[in-house]
């Protein structure tokens, strides 16, 4: 308990930063991941190729490498200066989008082909079929894997601690220099993550209940 109370000035703001990182990257990757999934199922071959290439490259690249790129290589290109926090949000979004894309695509695959054909018969174009018929059903059926991906994102955010973002993953280094027992500190950090993940699990359960599709 001492380790937590002595260092509340670390745990509070650092976990807050973790939550901010998570929230921004989650919104970003849900939007971008869904767009990628739309690219991957689009009838235009070039779009499909772009989507596939993105997923193949990013999903096969370790997250630390993505971080290292945005923090050390990107600034050398002299395009737009970004803060380390922004770089972390971008890295996490770029990385998680590839996984969200595949989750959404698997959801799209659960929607029977007949529905798209029926939509076409009614005169809907590709965008309307996807946006009004297929995607709403697809998203409903992929709640559990989607939340799993977001939980992974939450935990992956600790990598930002090594790239100049003061978040929960950096707490241990601080405690070690302050001389408190870092194993105890790690247990508190773990507890913090259990609480955050419980919230996400709760969201998952209530969404599943509300969105369950009768087949």
């Amino acid at each position, binding site marked *: 308990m001492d380790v937590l109370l002595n260092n509340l000035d670390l745990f509070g703001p650092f976990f807050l930063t973790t939550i901010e990182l998570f929230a921004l990257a989650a919104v970003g990757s849900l939007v971008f991941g869904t767009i990628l999934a739309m690219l991957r199922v689009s009838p235009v071959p070039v779009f499909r190729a772009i989507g596939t290439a993105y997923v193949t*490259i990013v999903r096969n690249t370790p997250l630390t490498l993505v971080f290292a790129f945005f923090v050390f290589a990107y600034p050398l290109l002299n395009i737009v200066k970004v803060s380390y926090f922004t770089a972390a949000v971008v890295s996490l979004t770029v990385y998680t989008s590839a996984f969200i894309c595949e989750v959404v695509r698997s959801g799209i695959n659960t929607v029977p082909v007949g529905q798209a054909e029926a939509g076409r018969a009614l005169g809907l174009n590709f965008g309307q079929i996807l946006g009004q018929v297929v995607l709403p059903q697809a998203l409903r059926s992929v709640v559990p894997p989607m939340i799993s991906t977001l939980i992974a994102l939450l935990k992956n955010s600790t990598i930002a601690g090594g790239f100049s973002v003061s978040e929960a993953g950096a707490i241990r280094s601080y405690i070690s220099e302050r001389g408190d027992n*870092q194993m105890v500190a790690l247990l508190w950090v773990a507890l913090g993550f259990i609480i955050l993940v419980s919230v996400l699990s709760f969201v998952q359960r209530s969404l599943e209940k509300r969105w369950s599709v009768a087949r």
Partner: protein
Amino acid sequence: MRIRTLAVGLLAGSLLLTACGKEGTPASPGGDASGANTAALPTYTVAQNVDLAGSPVFTKIKSAGSITIGVKDDQPGLGFKDPTTGKFGGFDIEIARMVAAGLGFGEDKIKYTTVDSAAREQAISNGQVDLYVGTYTITDKRKALVSFAGPYFQAGQGLLVRADDNSITGPQTLKGKKVCSVTGSTPIQRVRDQGLTEPGNIVEFQKYSQCIDKLQSKDVDAVTTDDAILKGYAAQDNTMKVVGEPFSKEPYGIGLNKNDKVLRDKIDDLLQASLDDGTWQKIYNATLGKSGSTATKPTIVKY
């Protein structure tokens, strides 16, 4: 097929780009990559029939036949691993060699293990390393977790800036400047606590070499940590310089198991002997002394 080639090209390109940002340390002329003058280094006589009754760690290393020493591998002049030969060199490494020889273990019986700052206490108390020699500042709080022999060096917090930058002369001139150090390290916590620069200008990475990269690419204006570490970098690359007086006291000790007073006393004796017979001075001159600055001999504190 074209797409696949494109994808491979992009992947290779991004890997190359990230590689650019990695720690690349040019070898300094007139010495090995650690910045040490190998020819001027002293040699150590390996002690025979050392017996430390009542020392659990010594009993363990004696029966293992080799000693495991925790070190740093990315601090030129102090603890540095030459990427081409895989050999360790520097002031801390020489101290480690000297102590190991005094305990009866020659160079071939030493196993160096790289341990980062944040993992030191755990590595020592878990027994993953028998000794730790790597810019390890003795503090009262740490003494509750591990023991310290020494100090074998007296360092203090300093500032490293680009050689052509005259706007930073000491801690009071840091306002509005970007300052970099290792995540959560004491120097950066001091900068934050004393408000030497704005919180938004504090940059933290996992390794000093990453801060050095950022200093050279002008993304940060100063790197702060113990002057010994900074002198090592400055000695190796003359585009950077150490400025101002040290503004803290960082006595470096050899970390070892908390419950081993016998071994600690033995190492204290070995350090004292090296200070008395000039070995310590020789080690300093051949390593950190190459930066041109002198060092005062530390006073061993037995406890």
